[in-house]
């Protein structure tokens, strides 16, 4: 067999089985949380700061949409369909899926060295220069070099670290800070955030940041080769050969 043909069949291992499985489970759970969270917000599209807030108090801001409850003054002469029941059931079930998946991923990340090897930026990249250089590559629409076939660049690492270690913990914390039973056990979870309504408002903004991440993530996947990146996250390899094992 000629050498060239062998080269074509070389496959670069990109994502491990645990990363792929937890990625897609988290994606499904996140979509469920996003849709049901949106439905729950519609029942009271007013946000407050501090411990308490209701239609008799001043809102921090109001989303200008009709509500699914006729007790909320929205200025619209229309009440949206109420979807809170199943939305709440599914929201908390999906939250459990996300949290349990995160535990598996977190333990794997620590013990396999995934966090250390693939997510924490390389020591040489701990400079602003490294970030600017990679941004410049993006702006010039340069194809990523081969090193990025099997690992992440400094911008990806930073974004993923922020999502995994800042936004996800924060969305779980602010969610629990709204639970009257959970806060009876751990009042500080709510008090540290400024109260129940502050927790709700932060929960809303953090879900917005996660949605922004999802959007940018999908755009970047599309720009760097949608088919090959999707194949990598499904099969684990960037270059598929005919001989599937």
């Amino acid at each position, binding site marked *: 067999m000629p050498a060239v043909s062998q080269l074509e069949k070389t496959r670069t291992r990109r994502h491990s*089985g645990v990363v792929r499985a937890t990625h897609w489970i988290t994606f499904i759970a996140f979509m469920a949380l996003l849709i049901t969270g949106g439905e*729950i*917000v519609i*029942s*009271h599209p*007013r946000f*407050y700061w501090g*411990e*308490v*807030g*209701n*239609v*008799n*108090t001043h809102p921090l801001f109001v989303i200008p949409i009709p509500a699914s*409850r*006729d*007790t*909320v003054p929205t200025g619209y002469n229309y009440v949206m369909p109420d979807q*809170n*029941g*199943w939305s*709440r*059931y*599914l929201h*908390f*079930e*999906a*939250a*459990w*899926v996300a949290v349990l998946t995160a535990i598996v991923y977190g333990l794997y990340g620590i013990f396999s060295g995934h966090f250390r090897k693939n997510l924490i930026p390389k020591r040489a990249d701990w400079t602003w220069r490294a970030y600017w250089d990679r941004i410049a590559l993006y702006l010039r629409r340069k194809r990523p070099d081969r090193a990025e076939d099997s690992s992440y660049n400094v911008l990806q690492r930073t974004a993923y670290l922020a999502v995994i270690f800042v936004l996800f913990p924060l969305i779980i914390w602010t969610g629990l800070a*709204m*639970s*009257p*039973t*959970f*806060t*009876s*056990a751990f*009042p500080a979870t*709510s008090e540290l955030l400024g109260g*129940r*309504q502050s927790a*709700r408002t932060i929960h809303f903004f953090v879900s917005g940041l996660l949605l922004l991440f999802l959007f940018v993530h999908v755009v970047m996947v599309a720009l760097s080769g949608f088919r090959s990146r999707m194949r990598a996250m499904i099969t684990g390899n960037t270059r598929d050969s005919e001989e599937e*094992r």
Partner: protein
Amino acid sequence: MNPISRRKLIYGGVAAAAGIGGLATAEHLAKRYGLVPPDGAGIYGPGETLTYACQKLLTTRLPAREFSRDMISKNPFANEIAPPTEEFKRLQAGGFNDWRLTVDGTVARPTSFSLADLKSMPIHSQITEIACEEGWSYVAEWIGTPLSSVLNEVGVLPQSRYVVYYTVEKNLWGSIDIADAHHPDTLLAMGMNDGELPVPFGGPLRLRIPRQLGYKSLKFVRHITVTDDIKKFGSGKGSVDPDYGYAWYAGI
């Protein structure tokens, strides 16, 4: 088949077996220790059971969050109530002197209490937040007698597992587990913020369950049934809420 995929197959098989075994054990333990909520079947069952079981194990004996007097909301929001029935109007016209709370079921001495009877029992007050599942909330002082004092009066039989409560509104009822019913913060509220409990807020009698969301704290309570079998009530899911798509347990 090459060695790597065989090893993977073995690991996967062991992991799957451990997972299935673990789930079966968890289900057995959950049922044995009453950690499955009445609506714990169906597609949302696993999530509901996890939430209920975890919160129950964590917090069964812990008090609700309480607030300082200066945090009491100036303009609490009463939320909607159904138009009062003729019977309710009649009782209201009589100053609720004829309002009765009937307690029956698996109890030694079924009893009917007047509001005066309830007011002669130990009176507690709590400054707690009522939070609606929609997202809004307010803080108020609630004054009344703990449900546990009524339960002690009627003598709850040992097999009892749930306390079912009915309101003046037809087909509006709920239930809590026996531990929550005995919890010192579960209050038969008759007063609010140093006055009588106003009708829009559930007067003359509201069951206040501050460690769960507002929809568990039903207004106009007048009948309580202690039971060892929640399946006998309604569609068997512990309250009228699951029939409308809402979870029986509202600790989150």
